[in-house]
């Protein structure tokens, strides 16, 4: 067994902060790295140590492999935690760590490589006896072969890049007339995005749910499933809200899903934390989708119901120890939901936003957990993911968790960058969400930006506040074109006003 004492976190934002918190509790040294615009990011302030890693663009810093490993060696890190994204599912990086004598906190490089190839992952799942979405056994070489497969499995179907992932490199084909165009586009995209134009075919499940199983394995080949997560609420394959357990599974279905996930994990001798993703059709049947060989963004909901710390489990198994709970994972308790708080403007087609966090008051109190990467005054840089923070709640059942999440969203004060708080409030208040009528098409089917425009009392109070403010600030008022017929707002000459900047 190795003893890991100095852990470098090859990441930023909320996940770096999340990992630092566990390292602190375990009395391990947390080592942050930062790009130039991240010099005063929260993970730098909170870590024990912090070292520069290059300019803002990820390729020059957080994705600069040589610089990352060289830094880890220089500062005498025992291990690297990759978080999610960046190097988290990069087998070459994991190998390079091993070559440099540094522990990579994640599965073995071979496991990452196998499961990163979607066709190899499908093959592993098939060997493990886990149901797959009907489709081609391997890559489809030519359009006429694709036509044959399509005839066999029927429309609608999905074309998927073998090297794809994270919602990229896939395309829905509704009928035979769309096939040729889709075929050409998907191959071209796959070549451009992944340098690999192999494409395979799957039946498209309509209005599916996205349900995933949290797995964790140790070096003694002990594997456990820590329950499922319902992640159906997505927008363009980006998850927005996750919960556990899934309302769509009964105890028998839940047990079958867990068993399937463990079968896959055992098949590849899975080490560390990972996720087996499934599609669930309206009939309640589930199909293997892919394996994510990393800690997921949404791992906290699993922590809330099991009481486990998944980062601590990752560290244990990286040291060669067994899982903390022995053979039987803790019985899950209650219900947990996570809302992702992102710097995107739901009123402007979810355009990402950057700028200064002018005001921040996180929701607190019973059953509320914040995993955040921001603080008041922090400048959100333009280079990275739009995820600012995660709001996680726990309560005894789904309805109580939903109400608690809504309470916390209403309590959330986050000003200065456009964000999706209003969208999340809309979502959590929606009767169909409350009824757990979910599918990956939920947002598409129900969301209308008009529904989150402020109205009623808010508008009225805003009018009154504007007038009262005008009264307060009555120092000097100009009517710049008062003599013409055009409308013009007053300009305020305000001695008391502090400099402030609104991000647009």
């Amino acid at each position, binding site marked *: 067994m190795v003893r890991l004492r100095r852990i470098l976190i090859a990441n930023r934002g909320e996940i770096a902060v999340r990992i630092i918190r566990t390292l602190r509790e375990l009395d391990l040294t947390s080592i942050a790295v930062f790009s130039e615009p991240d010099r005063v990011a929260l993970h730098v302030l909170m870590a024990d140590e912090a070292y520069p890693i290059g300019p803002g663009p990820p390729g020059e810093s957080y994705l600069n492999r040589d610089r990352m490993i060289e830094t880890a060696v220089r500062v005498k890190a025992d291990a690297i935690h990759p978080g999610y994204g960046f190097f988290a599912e990069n087998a070459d990086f994991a190998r390079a760590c091993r070559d440099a004598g540094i522990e990579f906190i994640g599965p073995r490089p071979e496991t990452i490589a196998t499961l990163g190839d979607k066709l190899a992952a499908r093959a592993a799942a098939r060997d493990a006896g886990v149901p797959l979405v009907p489709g081609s056994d391997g890559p489809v070489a030519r359009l006429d072969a694709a036509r044959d497969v399509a005839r066999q499995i029927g429309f609608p179907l999905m074309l998927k890049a073998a090297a794809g992932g994270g919602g990229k490199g896939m395309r829905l084909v509704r009928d035979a007339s769309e096939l040729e165009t889709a075929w050409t586009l998907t191959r071209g995209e796959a070549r451009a995005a992944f340098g690999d134009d192999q494409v395979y075919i799957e039946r498209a499940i309509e209005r599916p749910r996205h349900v995933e199983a949290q797995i964790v394995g140790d070096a003694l080949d002990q594997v456990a499933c820590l329950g499922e997560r319902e992640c159906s609420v997505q927008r363009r394959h980006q998850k927005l809200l996750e919960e556990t357990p899934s309302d769509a599974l009964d105890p028998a279905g839940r047990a079958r899903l867990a068993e399937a996930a463990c079968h896959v994990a055992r098949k590849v001798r899975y080490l560390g934390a990972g996720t087996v993703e499934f599609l669930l059709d309206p009939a309640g049947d589930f199909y293997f989708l892919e394996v994510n060989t990393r800690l997921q963004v949404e791992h906290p909901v699993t922590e809330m119901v099991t009481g486990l710390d998944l980062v601590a489990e990752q560290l244990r198994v990286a040291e060669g120890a067994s899982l903390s709970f022995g053979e039987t994972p803790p019985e899950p308790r209650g219900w947990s939901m996570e809302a992702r708080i992102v710097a995107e403007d739901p009123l402007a087609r979810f355009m990402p936003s950057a700028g200064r966090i*002018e*005001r921040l008051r996180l929701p607190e109190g019973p059953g509320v957990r914040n995993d955040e990467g921001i603080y008041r005054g922090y400048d959100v840089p333009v280079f990275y993911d739009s995820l600012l923070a995660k709001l996680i709640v726990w309560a005894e059942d789904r309805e109580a968790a939903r109400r608690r999440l809504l309470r916390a969203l*209403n309590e*959330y*004060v*986050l*000003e200065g960058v456009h*964000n999706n*708080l*209003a969208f999340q*409030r809309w979502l959590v208040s929606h009767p169909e969400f409350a009824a757990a009528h979910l599918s990956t098409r939920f947002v598409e089917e129900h969301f209308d930006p008009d529904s*989150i*425009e*402020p109205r009623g*009392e*808010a*508008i*009225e*109070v*805003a*009018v*009154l*506040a*504007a*007038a*009262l*403010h*005008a*009264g*307060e600030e*009555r120092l*000097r*008022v*100009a*009517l*710049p*074109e*008062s*003599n*013409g*017929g055009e*409308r*013009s*707002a*007053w*300009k*305020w000459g*305000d001695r008391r*006003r*502090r400099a*402030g900047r*609104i991000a647009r």
Partner: protein
Amino acid sequence: MRFWVALAGRDAEVEFRREGDALVLEMEGRTLAADFRRLPDGEVYSLLIDGRSHEVRVSPAGSGLEITIHGATLPVEVRHPLERLLQATPQAAGRGAGETIVAPMPGLVVAVRVRPGEKVAAGQPVAIVEAMKMQNELSARQGGVVSEVLVAEGAPVTVGQPLVRLEGSP
């Protein structure tokens, strides 16, 4: 005090006055009891309207204001109620024909910024009229050469009273 507020396609006149300790608002025929306090934390107000508690941020945005309430940010324009009147005032004749700057409200002439014969650019302030404890700067819309100054500093004026006349530039 009385303001004309335009926000999110809605237009409302708000009047408020102190009655002893209380602040009384009138809007659209309704009377509301209010309390209004700036938080120590920045440009934020705590507003109690008939007991309902609201936290509202008011920030400058361009030439107007921006109100942040319950996470939503709304652009807002606050104007003098008499500006409505201006819209009804007949437009000066077309460019080149000169213009007359008139008082948009009853008040006191605090300053006249131009002298006869002076050239005035479009947008240049020509006079300040104080009304309801606020100083309102009046500017030339098109500009020209000052032909007449019709009021003296300190003089009271009524709505629509001509203050300064400009001859149009060719």
